[in-house]
């Protein structure tokens, strides 16, 4: 057992209202620069739909992620020689058309402020932010399919309907059986990141200490294999700097114990952030599991932070007491591992993503037609039944289980069922407390939860405060390469002796660090 600590996340889709406050917060902090206009490190998609960039989930098209080859994994993109052959013409790479159709746009706002003679009211016209071409048509964008806009067509290309008949697939794209929900997406900061594996320059890396996946802006040579190989299409090419960029998990904030801005700004409080410990020795085994077993395998490498042996080994591997404490209080550990409510996005890409989604419950089907009215009026108070669907009535939920299973469990419906049944059971339990005045323990027993679990889930999913949702240990100062003490005054300019700060640093490091090292 080799213990590693990793920042990880959960998004509760049950509560996401698709407001994109996260998206705009991220945009305003990180990507409203030249070259980054089309980058959305955080975006929220409406499912069903094909998302941003178009059809990112379809790996037949994009060749992202990993595939099994015998007893090992290889990048779906192809072998190393194949990659090298394509170095100057990478055929599996999204282009502007896949992000923004014609071009990423702004508007000619100046027209509103600059008076011009004419009879007609002025308007700001759409304009490309890259070429500055004006009056361009707008045909795609980061949130194009918001609230299922156009999804009756794009939904046909949504791979999550896989395994359904054509008739069934088409029925879900009509008003009678319509369903939709939101899928907020950031970089998954995978344990087995394909972007890192694919980078020919060694610029993409996963941080040892906390698992954040970054691209070194000095080493990046914009071969762009990260964007080809990332199955989530989360690295972006900056046309202005000629470097790849991606979500940095707001590491300057996280290092100081603050959640990333997309987490902080979430109005629905759907997001949790915490540390999990995992067993490095078993990563390959988990990434090689059979499709239906992928979720279970990924859960199995997450270690119990209360286990004496795990704690001993974590310490031996250099994980501090503070980080172990944070792992014990981690909301992500509870939601993903302990209660098994949260699921990874497309585990079949085999990158072991570390952002987990709690699949949404949905309204029950009430449409008339083939199904009898008697069967559908579940909210008829005159009937003695509960106002909640039964935990075994998941087939009555509007969002088909198969769809959620294709999205979050590589098609394994049992994993989704477990989560949804538990979510429903906790509702039944809470309702029994409030309405009947006595706890319904039977329903908890059916889904394998204790009362303590049920109360914990209620708290975690609907009542938890900021410090419960975000349990973030700060960066270990002693592991940092720079000492703030020696950095004093280095930002200032000393006209008569410009080298003084460097000299001081040199002398400090000579005295306090490696005697062989002349400069830090």
């Amino acid at each position, binding site marked *: 057992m080799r213990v590693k600590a990793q920042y990880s996340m959960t998004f509760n889709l049950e509560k996401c209202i698709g407001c994109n406050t996260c*998206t*705009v917060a991220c945009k305003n902090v990180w990507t409203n620069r030249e070259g980054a206009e089309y980058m959305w490190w955080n975006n929220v998609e409406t499912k069903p739909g094909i998302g941003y960039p178009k059809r990112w989930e379809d790996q037949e098209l994009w060749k992202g992620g990993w595939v099994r080859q015998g007893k090992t994994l290889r990048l779906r993109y192809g072998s190393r020689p194949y990659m090298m052959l394509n170095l100057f013409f990478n055929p599996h790479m999204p282009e502007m058309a896949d992000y923004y159709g014609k071009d990423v746009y702004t508007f000619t706002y100046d027209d509103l402020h600059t008076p011009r003679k004419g009879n*007609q009211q002025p*308007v*700001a016209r759409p304009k490309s932010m890259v070429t500055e071409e004006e009056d361009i048509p707008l045909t795609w*964008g*980061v949130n*194009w399919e918001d609230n299922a*806009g156009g999804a009756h067509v794009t939904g046909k290309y949504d791979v999550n309907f896989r395994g359904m008949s054509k008739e069934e697939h088409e029925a879900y794209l009509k008003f009678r059986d319509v369903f939709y929900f939101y899928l907020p997406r950031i970089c998954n900061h995978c344990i087995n990141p394909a972007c890192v594996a694919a980078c020919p320059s060694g610029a993409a890396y996963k941080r040892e200490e906390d698992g954040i996946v970054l691209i070194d802006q000095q080493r990046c040579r914009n071969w762009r294999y990260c964007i080809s190989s990332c199955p989530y299409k989360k690295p972006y090419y900056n046309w202005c700097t000629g470097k790849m960029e991606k979500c940095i998990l707001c590491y300057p904030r996280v290092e100081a114990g603050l959640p990333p801005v997309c987490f902080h700004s979430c109005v629905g409080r759907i997001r949790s952030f915490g540390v999990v410990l995992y067993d490095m020795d078993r990563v390959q085994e988990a990434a090689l599991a059979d499709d239906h077993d992928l979720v279970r395998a990924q859960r199995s490498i997450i270690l119990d932070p209360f286990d004496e042996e795990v704690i001993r080994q974590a310490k031996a591997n250099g994980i501090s007491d503070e980080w172990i404490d944070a792992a014990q209080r981690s909301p992500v550990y509870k939601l993903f591992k302990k209660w098994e409510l949260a699921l990874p996005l497309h585990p079949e890409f085999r990158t072991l993503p570390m952002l987990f989604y709690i699949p949404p419950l949905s309204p029950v089907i009430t449409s008339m037609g083939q199904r009898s009215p008697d069967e559908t009026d579940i909210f008829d108070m005159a009937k003695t039944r509960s106002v909640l669907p039964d935990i075994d009535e998941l087939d009555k939920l509007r969002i088909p289980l198969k769809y959620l299973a294709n999205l979050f469990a590589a098609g394994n419906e049992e994993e989704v069922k477990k989560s949804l049944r538990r979510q429903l059971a906790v509702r039944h339990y809470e309702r029994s407390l409030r309405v009947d005045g006595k706890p319904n323990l039977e329903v908890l027993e059916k889904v394998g939860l204790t009362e303590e679990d049920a109360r914990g889930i209620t708290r975690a999913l609907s009542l938890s405060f900021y410090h419960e949702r975000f349990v973030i240990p700060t960066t270990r100062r002693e592991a940092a390469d720079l000492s703030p003490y020696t950095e004093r005054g280095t930002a200032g300019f000393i006209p008569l002796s410009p080298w003084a700060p460097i000299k001081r640093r040199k002398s400090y490091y000579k005295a306090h660090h490696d005697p062989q090292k002349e400069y830090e």
Partner: protein
Amino acid sequence: MLQQFKEGRLNFAIHNIDAPENHLKVLTVWRGNLIGTSMRGHELALKHFLGTHHNVLYDHEPARGLVKEINWDPEECPIGKLDLLVNLNIRMDSTANYADVVLPAAFWYEKYDITFGDMHTFVHPLQPATDPPWECKHDWEAFKLIAKKFSELAKRHFPKPVKDIVLKPLWMDSPDQLGQPLGEVKDWKKGEVEPIPGKYFPHIFIVERDYTQVYDRLVSLGPRIDHYGSKGHYADLRPIVEEELKQNEVLTVKNGRVYFERAEQFCELICQVSPELNGRLAHMFFKEMEKKVGLPLADLVEPVKSRRVHYKELASQPRRIHTTPMWGAILFDPETGKQRPFAPWTLNVERLKPWHTLTGRIEIYFDHQAIRELGEAIPTYKPPLDMVAIGDIRLDKAEPKSKVFRFITPHGKWQIHSSFRDHWPMMHMSRGGPTVWLNPEDADEIEVKDNDWVELYCENGIQVCRAVVSHQVPRGMAIVYHQVERHVNVPFSPLAKKRGCTDLRGGNNNATTRILMNPHTMVGGYGNFCYDINYWGTSPSERDHGVLIRKMPPASGKKEVIYREEELHLLPAR
């Protein structure tokens, strides 16, 4: 005056609505996008109210012959009634675009102010993070400057006080509520009753206006502070003025009166004369209310009686309001000593304060004669208005391959009415400009595909936008989330060119609407059906209209749509 009214020598302005002396002449818009957001019947208003370019399509007035008691000319309705539109604005929105004078206003982060909402219990202070740029002024400064100049000019034009007649409607939370027992509609004009003010007729007041004092009245408190309050709660503010405000370190005392000429002084004054932040005042109001409802209530604020929240304190950390009779929520539990979150009506439910209805309880049946006759007595389904029958939609003028839709304009997800939407990152949410949501089968019928340009039109006007076709939209429905401005990504309309409109641009989401007064909101003098600002009064229904929609004919040449005036020759007139 009553005699003159009875004899018909005096009359209300509404009865002679076309007379120029009855038009609104000067309008100052502050903190609102009146032209871009609030104007139901936007194009009609552009034509008749502002007198500017528009794309109204009426060729005759459909109400001709239907109006009985109002003098009007259906052939020649007045055009351009307004003389001057002044706008204090933080941005170049539609109102600023159409205004005669724009006064640049300080943004939220450039001024002292105080705001409060009714969903939670915290008061928001605003403080300048930077000074307002260029000539921008805090609203308070702008009004002060206008008032100062006005007072100065008044010395020449109105050197002495002038008398004015003010009519006040039958008022909420006053004895007027019992004005019309049994809710019977009786018209004094037809001699059914006597025009008794406060019963069947508005109150008549003669007020004296000293225009030379407008500035001083704006920036000082009083003189009528012995009857202070609103919503039926009144108290004598003099003890607070004498014992607290005149000792307040922030406020100024001049000529025996409290002055607050600087914005931060005004904010402090608001804190001190609000029962929400001044415990003594809340206690006084509760004491008054106890007399009315005959129940002990002042104990609710006994623990906060000496609490005063100052503006400076608001700036230093968030502060909550305490319980007041102005809000129906109990915010403090005297037994546990804990604060409670905002939950409406707890005062009525827990302390049995009667609701402001005739029965004192929540009502779902309204027995007023007019409400019953209009079928609104109980909350039941009413079908939408037939916009074809009432003339807004003319099927004989419909373009080929058009279809009638029900038209609603719910709140949008990406904006607060028209605010915060036009900036480019926000325009990347959804589709980047005005859109209408349609069902796929409806779209097929008019040969529209997702993201095609369409024209929404009826006699009231034309809107040009793109279609978002989605299977989540029910059939027959056209949904435009409000509020879209008329000036971002709005091209020219071929239909407007064909019909020879003076404005060839598509309008906003109110282009196809008009003000439809809901007659049952005209009821007054009967319990809770009494006028109060923003509570009860005649209101328009703007969310239940109808439109025709067609696919917009493409421009000639390479362009799909035409935005620029110099390319108007490429716009087809069909």
